[in-house]
Every structure is written in C-alpha cells, then in structure tokens.
C-alpha cells in the first residue's frame, strides 16, 4: 500500500493508497481500480471525479471528528464508487455527500456509520441520477448511534430516469440491548461490552482497512 501526500488536485491510477492530506480542499481524479484510505484526516471539500470504467473504494475513518465536510462525487459511465465512512463525533458535525450520476451503467454504494458522543451530527446524503440515463444503481446504507449526542441523517435519492435501481436504509438508535446482554453473559462488564460494541459498529464499515492493517479489531 502506497502512502501519498495529497494537495489540491491529484490523479490516482490503479492501486491502494493511504492518503495524507496537505490541505483540506482536495480533488481526486480516479482512473482505474483504486482503493483509498483517509484515516483521521480532516476534510472541508473533497471532490471525486471517476473516469469511465473506473472503480474507487474509499474508506474514511475519523476517531474524533469535529468538522464540516462536503464530499462531491461525479460519475459518468461504467464507474463504481464504494464509499465507506465511519466516524465518531464529540462536537457538532455536518457532513454532506453529493453524488451525481450523469451517465449510464454506474454503481454507487454509500455506507456511513456514525457514533455521536456529544452534540449533534448531521449527515445529508444526496444521490442524483440524471434524466436520459440507464442501468445505474444507487444504494445508501446509513447508520447512527446516539451515545450521548444526537445523530440526524437525511438520505435523499433524486432519480430522473426510469432505468435505475435505488435503495436506502437508514437506522438511528442506541446500543442494542440484546447484544449488550450477550457480551455480559460471557463475563464482560457493561462498560467494556459497550466499548466493544461501539468499536464493532464503526469497524464493521472498515473491515477492508482493518484486514490490511493486521487483521484484527485492535488495529
């Protein structure tokens, strides 16, 4: 895996990259099959342009997110975006993801996991599929846990074409009581059980990164 320092605009060709950001406004032009990891990097504006027939698997993970971010994803033809974002916020946070699908045969999968420890976290996902397009797939899977703070999620899919598969799943809640009881029934105290579940919730969206970093949740 390559570590690269990113500033302003960068073209990424096939490969896996850990992206270290030099500034908070970045444009990534994706050409080929690219996997990128943004770990504990703060973003203000991220623009992703996928060239035709390209795939971008992007993992964004922040342990202590305190920022307002806008992520804009542009897709044209035969491209795939798999955006896996996981973060914990201890302060007010606004995240907006705008995914525009302008052409045909594109896949968009946006998975977000957020734990709000304090204050509010607002996540707005807008996926827009243009008219006169066909064979596009747009899926949103957005989950939040209120753990002292409040999560607010707006899952929007605007579809102006008849030939599209679009679906969104959104859940916001607290820690699952059955899961807590299950861990406690194995002799794990409540605080540790909560910690394990919260970590698991975040890491369930980051399995690829965890595998590459050593294969365990302690990474």
């Amino acid at each position, binding site marked *: 895996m390559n570590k690269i320092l990113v500033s302003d605009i960068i073209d990424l060709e096939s490969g896996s990259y850990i992206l270290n950001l030099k500034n908070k406004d970045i444009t990534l032009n994706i050409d080929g099959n690219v996997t990128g990891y943004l770990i504990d990097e703060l973003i203000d504006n991220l623009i992703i342009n996928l060239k035709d027939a390209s795939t971008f698997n992007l993992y964004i993970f922040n342990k202590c997110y305190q920022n307002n971010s806008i992520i804009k994803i542009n897709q044209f033809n035969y491209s795939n975006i798999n955006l896996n974002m996981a973060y914990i916020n201890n302060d007010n946070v606004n995240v907006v993801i705008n995914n525009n699908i302008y052409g045909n045969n594109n896949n968009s999968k946006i998975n977000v996991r957020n734990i709000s420890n304090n204050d509010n976290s607002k996540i707005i996902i807008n996926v827009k599929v243009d008219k006169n397009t066909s064979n596009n797939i747009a899926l949103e899977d957005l989950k939040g846990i209120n753990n002292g703070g409040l999560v607010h999620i707006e899952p929007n899919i605007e579809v102006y074409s008849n030939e599209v598969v679009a679906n969104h799943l959104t859940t916001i809640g607290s820690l699952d009581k059955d899961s807590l009881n299950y861990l406690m029934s194995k002799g794990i105290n409540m605080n540790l059980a909560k910690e394990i579940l919260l970590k698991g919730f975040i890491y369930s969206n980051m*399995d690829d990164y965890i595998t590459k970093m050593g294969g365990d949740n302690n990474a």
Partner: protein
Amino acid sequence: MLELINLNLYIKDKILFKDLNLKINKGEVHVLMGKNGVGKSSIAKIIMGDNNYKVEGIIKYNGQDITNLSIYERAKLGIYLLNQTPIQIEGVTNAEMLRVALSEKTGKPVDIFAFNKELENICEKLELDKSFIHREINVGCSGGERKKIELLHMWLLKPSLIILDEIDSGLDVDAIKLVAKSIKEYANTYKPAIIIITHSSTLINTFTDFQVHVLDHQKIVVNGNKKLAEKVLKNGFKNLNIEHLL
C-alpha cells in the same frame, strides 16, 4: 450448587411460575420438559439474570445469594447460557470478545499464542473451520455453525453451570450428534452442573443418569428420571395425566 427457592416469576405483571423450587448439585444433569410456551426458556433466562423478569424468592449459587446479581456477575461466577438462537454481532470477532472475556475472568492479560492455540484445538474438536475464530460473532452463520460457536465460547470460558436452551433445535442429525458428543466430553472433563431444555432425545440420551422435571400450570408437576423422559418423548405430555397430578 444452584438452588431456586420459593421462586415466583413474572413478566410484565403476568405470573409465569409460582413457588418454584429446584436444587442442582455439581456434576448433575437436570432436564426441563414441558409444552411450548410453558416457560422453560424463562427459567433459563432468570438463572442467567435477564432483568426483563421480576423475581420473588431466592436464587443461590454455591451458597451465595445471586438473586440481585447482574448477568455479568453471574457469568463471572461460572453460569453460562447456550441459547437456542444466538444473536449475531457485526464488527466484533469471536477472538476479540473471548480475549476480553478471558482477561476479565482471570484478571490477567491473555497470552495470545496460547489463546489462539487453544481456540484452534477447540475448533478442531468441534469440526469448525478455524477461520471462525477471527470472524464476526455469528454473522452469516447457519444455525448449526452458531451452536458450534457457542460451544467454542463455552470450552474456552469453562463455566461450572451450563444451561442448554433447546440447543438441539434446528440442527441436522450429524450436527446434533456432534453437539451432544462435545457437551458430554465437557461434562466428563469439567464436571459442571447441566440444565437441559429440550424436546428431543438425542442430547439427553448422551447421559446415562439425569433428573427430569416436567413443567406445567406455573410449576413443576412431575419429577423423575430417564424413564420419565422416555415416557414423555414416546407418548407426549397428555398421557402424563397432568390434570390429575395437580
């Protein structure tokens, strides 16, 4: 080892059991039988400490009153419930959970090499692929795999009281035999007390000597041994003439 003394058991103000008494000693096997919905699983849950139930009376474990102890405290004392439908937990691996649980039990950091070796040996015994050790708990697993994973946890944590709540339900013939063999082996090795809730013969026939309690009408209506279990499994509960026994 375990004593249920004059227990009244309620859920949402509905009484499930009245004046329930049961004593189970170390190394003994007790089988709870009864029609569907009679409350067998509720007994398993209150022994484990499920706080959805209201309990009046006393539950003692090794002489200690555990009536007001939490699930965690009871698990630390060695009580272990094997559920009929183990839940799945995304993002948490068996290894991670067991490492924390073992460390909590022993009060020491876990020797990772020995820990992994032991888990691999248990997997081999259970005919469970070793990859399950580092997979998320029960995620994407079949019913049979889930039961084996629960047995994996049991073998590692070495509880002294095991409650098997219809662990044989939904398993194919070979899987039931393997599960039964594993539990028998555990019983021979560690001599735990065992409570079995079941509607089938395969698991209980593994044991030569056990006590049977038939539940109905909010209490234990008949006590017996292997012959009683055979009678119930052959002829059903109707022929016990329970109404006559009340």
